[in-house]
């Protein structure tokens, strides 16, 4: 595997017709870093992720990989979406290999299924799996082509607290072990604080603030403190605007 590239987001803006989703985003993400994007709904988190993933193009500004264009650097980026987006007509194993007949691809799929502890379900269809199992398949699929950059858009939003916690640990261990750069979008500040090296708060259509993750992610109190700090910024940084919105409604 080639060296994981540094991602530079430079003055990126994204507009949909008259609606501004992002403006003036400047952010550097270092190789192997685990960054969490948190913020209010509609704050532009998914949009930023989609721009990095090349699913959409920025209206202005640029995203560079090791200071090169996307075409030159050709980073291997995989997205794990909020919904599992598994193909219901393929078995779990085929969802990883896309029915490739290549022996190496198949072997890799078998190996990754073991990693997410779903070897027993290789021949099951997604319709036969629970929500958490489906997300594990989606995670395994995202890891199939040895991504350098893994983008996670609230992949755990629909899971119960226990399953969610287990998935967090699974993702963390895999990302550390494979030294991927990971960007996780989440509503849950505690999840962000538990998992990330750095927490970026998206607000007012830009990256407004950031916090380092707790030094010891197993220290629940440290995690709580960081989460609370992030929450305070999300909620109160511009109280006047919220007040205005409230008064204009009434």
């Amino acid at each position, binding site marked *: 595997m080639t060296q994981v590239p540094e991602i530079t987001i430079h003055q990126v803006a994204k507009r949909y017709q008259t609606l501004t989703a992002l403006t003036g985003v400047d952010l550097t993400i270092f190789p192997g870093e685990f960054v969490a994007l948190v913020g209010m709904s509609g704050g532009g988190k998914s949009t930023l992720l989609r721009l990095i*993933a*090349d*699913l959409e193009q920025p209206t202005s500004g640029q995203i560079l990989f090791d200071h090169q264009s996307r075409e030159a650097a050709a980073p291997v*980026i*995989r*997205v794990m*979406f909020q*919904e599992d*987006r598994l*193909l*219901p*007509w*393929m078995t779990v194993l085929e969802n990883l290999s*896309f*029915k490739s007949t290549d022996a190496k691809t198949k072997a890799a799929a078998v190996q990754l299924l073991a990693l997410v502890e779903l070897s*027993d*379900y290789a*021949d*099951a*269809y997604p*319709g*036969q*799996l*629970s929500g958490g199992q489906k997300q594990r398949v989606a995670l395994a*699929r995202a890891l199939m*082509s040895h991504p350098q950059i893994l983008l996670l858009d609230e992949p755990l939003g629909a899971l119960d607290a226990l399953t969610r916690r287990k998935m967090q640990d699974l993702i963390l261990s895999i990302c550390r072990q494979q030294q991927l750069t990971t960007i996780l979008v989440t509503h849950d500040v505690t999840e962000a604080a538990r998992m990330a090296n750095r927490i970026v708060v998206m607000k007012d259509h830009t990256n407004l603030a950031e916090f380092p993750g707790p030094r010891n992610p197993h220290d629940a109190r440290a995690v709580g403190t960081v989460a609370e700090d992030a929450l305070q910024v999300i909620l109160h940084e511009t109280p006047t605007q919220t007040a205005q919105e409230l008064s204009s409604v009434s």
Partner: protein
Amino acid sequence: MQKSMTYSTPAVPRPHRQRPALTAALPFLLPVAVVLLWQLGSSLGWLSSSVLPSPWAVVKDGVTLTLSGELPKNLSISLYRATVGLLIGGGLGLFLGFINGTSRICRLLLDSSIQMIRNIPHLALIPLIILWLGINESAKISLVAIGTMFPVYINTLNGIRSVDPDLLEMGRSYNLSRHDLFKKIIFPAALPQILVGIRYALGVMWTTLIVAETLSASSGIGYMATNAEDYVDMETVVLCIVIYAILGKVSDLVAKGFEALLLDWQTTKRSEAA
């Protein structure tokens, strides 16, 4: 008939709790009871044989016509016309549905014209087709082809156009080639709807063929019925109607079999998980 061409996709059957033997027998109960009542009515003289011959008389007629070779000959020529017509019409419908579903240019160029032609009842074309092609095989086959093309076309197009865009986005971001996108995402996603179209086309196929054979033919089941009508041969007329019912049912069963085979992923539910 035209409006209901796009059905919703077949629903997943619910597990039922009745005893399997009883459940399997239940659909046959009504037809068997009707035939028994009919036979009883004929035997007791309530039903005059000039109005409706008894089931037994119809069966006897069927045996005679089979032994004389008349029924097998007419049946096979009808089956031949139906199959060839469906293959041509269905093939064209699939092809047009695929190109219009995947290419915007093709869709803009062709779809509105096809939709316009679709609104002409294809049986209205019978006089024109007879004038053009006479009463030979190609006339009947063309009519079946025209009739079956539209339901297949519409359902194929509809199936392809309603593929979940999220799955397509996933496929693209996972670097699937255009060919793989079609083969592994678009086609399987559209398949249930395509099969609905084919099943509908099977119904249209028989109706068209019967009308065409009744109006202009010198062979086939439809011709057999018209011919019998001329000789006031009630048994054969009823026999032909029964044969239509059986043919319709058989093609429906074949279509259902294909659905079960091709869409096994739809019916495998969590209860059957490993």
